[in-house]
């Protein structure tokens, strides 16, 4: 690095750019350090939060587990931990359908748990009841987890006998609430001051020392993360220090600063939305992509590399007609999108052509009534149509029976589940295309048609050569937009057919949702699905818009 800085081209370059904007050395160094330190601080904070949560979790779960073990051996619970025994759910004597549990604090007697005799002072009873129920559903003989209410409590359960769990009392331990360690402000401020001093000292000595000082100053910020054993964060901070030092060397920070000050007004106007997007969209997006490389099971994440993607793209070893095979779902999704777009466009354009006649009586009223489906919230539309396709009471079967046909047992085969989905979405989506087409039709100058008529063009020829070319520029983007909406149309599929029968009418977005929330919290799998869906849509947008543009140019 030292050798490089002495080479003539770098010198020349430096002389050129500094002659334009002469920034004092120290000010420049501190400016760059501030940027690097802000990023490093962000990383350190994230690392700190992660580390302290892990520690809290480890401490609390151990406390809970040790108490549960103590209870099983009939020893008192550890201090600050509440230990109880919960009986299996036994049928009530009066109403055998009802099942009751009983609870026994370590130092008191059995009493009923929950039910009508619920005592408002026993506020944790529900937690014990639910924990016992969850525990019975697990195959393991012990269970420990953090409460999900943010109180920092852990709950552990352990069977008091080795026989079948259903007949066995459960020892349950619930720790007191605990908050994680406070943020170490003093350490952070101290480290920041030290780092800034080192960077400034470097700058005062000379060029090469300035860059070394920059790196050393930022590296100081990595020290606390090393003490927390947060090695990834420490490495990231060191990389940032090196990157800033290197950026200084090739004048990148100066150029960046000049660019910033030139566009200060514009950039400060963009900043609020930009920062919000960074926090709310970019960070979750990046986390979502990372999650795709992990497997999530019962609260623990395991790195599995590209296994999720391999499982998705290989169909998971399932045959191609299996409803969980990615390619099957992709096929359904594409078919779903195609059917809907074709129906939306043809119905929308047909209605627009009908409505475009200025002499129609009550034209405004017709138009208003025809866009009604667009005005209704789409979850209500979906539920409404689900009701109409109800086998017993639904309107469709009533109509079929009224004309003497048999009712259809909806949602029992692929076709009679897919059709209601498409019908619902068609009803929901044609008004958009109709409005777009109507707008485009109104821009066609009447003279064109008159000239064509004079030249003897048939009405089909006029439609083909005047109407269609005028519709295309408006319908192109509308189709691109509509296809993405339909591809992602979660509500209709989820609420109308709900994937029935047996997942076969799911589209990609609903299947991804089911992996996350309905098939044992397989978050990693769901995130990988999300990434794949995003890539498909990105490809479609890039190539789709290119195709639309090319057609428009012709």
């Amino acid at each position: 690095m030292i050798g490089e800085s002495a080479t003539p081209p770098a010198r020349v370059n430096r002389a050129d750019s500094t002659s334009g904007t002469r920034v004092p050395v120290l000010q420049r160094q501190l400016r760059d350090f501030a940027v690097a330190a802000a990023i490093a601080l962000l990383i350190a904070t994230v690392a700190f939060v992660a580390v302290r949560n892990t520690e809290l979790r480890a401490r609390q779960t151990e406390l809970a587990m040790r108490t549960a073990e103590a209870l099983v051996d009939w020893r008192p619970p550890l201090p600050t931990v509440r230990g109880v025994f919960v009986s299996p759910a036994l049928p009530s004597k009066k109403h055998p359908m009802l099942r009751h549990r009983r609870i026994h604090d370590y130092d008191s007697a059995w009493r009923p748990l929950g039910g009508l005799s619920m005592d408002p002072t026993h506020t944790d009873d529900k937690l014990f009841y639910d924990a016992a129920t969850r525990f019975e559903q697990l195959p393991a003989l012990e269970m420990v987890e953090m409460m999900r209410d943010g109180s920092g409590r852990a709950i552990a359960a352990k069977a008091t006998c080795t026989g079948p769990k259903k007949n066995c009392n459960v020892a349950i331990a619930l720790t007191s609430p605990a908050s994680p360690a406070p943020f170490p402000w003093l350490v952070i401020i101290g480290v920041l001051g030290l780092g800034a001093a080192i960077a400034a000292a470097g700058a005062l000595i000379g060029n090469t020392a300035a860059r070394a000082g920059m790196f050393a100053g930022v590296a100081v910020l990595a020290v606390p993360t090393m003490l927390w054993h947060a090695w990834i964060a420490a490495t990231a901070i060191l990389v940032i220090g090196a990157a800033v030092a290197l950026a200084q060397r090739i004048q990148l920070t100066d150029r960046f600063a000049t660019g910033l000050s030139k566009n200060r007004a514009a950039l400060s106007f963009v900043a609020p939305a930009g920062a919000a997007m960074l926090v709310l969209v970019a960070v979750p997006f990046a986390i979502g992509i990372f999650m795709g490389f992990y497997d999530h099971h019962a609260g623990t994440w395991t790195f599995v590399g590209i296994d999720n993607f391999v499982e998705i793209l290989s169909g998971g070893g399932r045959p191609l007609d299996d409803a969980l095979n990615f390619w099957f779902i992709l096929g359904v999704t594409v078919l779903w999108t195609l059917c809907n777009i074709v129906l939306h466009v043809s119905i929308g354009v047909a209605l627009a052509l009908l409505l475009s006649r200025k002499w129609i009586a009550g034209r405004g009223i017709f138009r208003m009534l025809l866009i009604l489906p667009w005005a209704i919230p789409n979850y209500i539309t979906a539920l409404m149509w689900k009701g109409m396709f109800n086998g017993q009471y639904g309107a469709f079967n009533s109509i079929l029976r009224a004309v003497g046909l048999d009712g259809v047992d909806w949602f029992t085969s692929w076709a009679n589940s897919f059709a209601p989905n498409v019908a619902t979405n068609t009803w929901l989506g044609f008004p958009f295309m109709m409005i777009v087409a109507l707008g485009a039709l109104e821009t066609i100058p009447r003279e064109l048609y008159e000239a064509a008529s004079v030249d003897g063009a048939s009405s089909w020829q006029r439609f083909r050569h005047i109407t269609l070319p005028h519709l295309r520029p408006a319908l192109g983007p509308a189709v691109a937009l509509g296809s993405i909406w339909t591809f992602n149309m979660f509500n209709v599929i989820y609420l109308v057919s709900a994937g029935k029968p047996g997942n076969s009418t799911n589209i990609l977005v609903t299947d991804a949702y089911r992996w996350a929330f309905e098939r044992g919290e397989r978050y990693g799998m769901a995130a990988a699905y999300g990434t794949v869906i995003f890539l498909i849509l990105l490809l479609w947008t890039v190539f789709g818009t290119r195709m639309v543009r090319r057609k428009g140019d012709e």
Partner: protein
Amino acid sequence: MNRRLARGAIAPRPRIHDTGRLATIIAIHVALILLVAIVLYPVLLVCKKAFEPGRHFALSASPIPDHLTTDHFKDLFGARGGHGELLFLRHALNSLIVALSTTVVGVVLSCTAAYALSRFRFPGRHAGLTTFLVVQMFPATLLLLPLYVILDKLGLLNSLAGLVLVYSTTAIPFCVWTLKGYFDTLPRELEEAARIDGASTWMIFRKIILPLARPGLAVTALFSFMTAWNEFIMASTFMTDESKYTLPVLIQSSVGQFSADWGLFAAGAVVTSIPVMIAFYVLQKYLVGGLTAGAVKG
């Protein structure tokens, strides 16, 4: 079919004595009336159900109820939760809070950015515009899952504030695009004059642009309000506590897997949709322009 449509599209006002023309006119009106009837049928069924006794749809396909009742509305407004609170009002209030906060966050954070993207040329402008557009095309599940995990870690699951954050992820890009579209239509002469008089960018924005853009701001705000008001899947995933539900979750749960009360659903659907539908009809002509303008330029 196309042939006839195309001729109709260009026909000058037809002469009534021409019997062929007269037949066409009648045919078109009949066709339109039929189509409107088909489109309106499901809506009428729901309205009928809202005023008809019983939990299930009646077996007749007619959209006119035999008996009228307001029981479903009484049930809807009278239902009480675990703490004796009136559930519908609670959920309506939740919906209102979430939708209003989302709107405020969306419009306030995006109005300056939209102005800058409309008026200034600066490095990163094109990339920014593309990002704001692409983000609107994300499938809901793509961000839902990471946000769920993050909010879980932050203890913001099951809180209205968390839901506002989630809705802002779609509201901000939407607001930026529609507002930018509106700012593009405003004339620049006033700003140039003010700049010559020595006004700063911020002053121009505050004193000239914002007052001029009031209609655009109103429309954008109303649309982001409606989007949040109508959102279902995020709310039902993130909210587990009945007192934190929003209206869509309430309405969906009234026709859940095990106990479907279509009367209650219909009453809820009518009450929730009417304000949104009114807003929609007032604003719909702005929506198409905004959406397709964004798509064409992207």
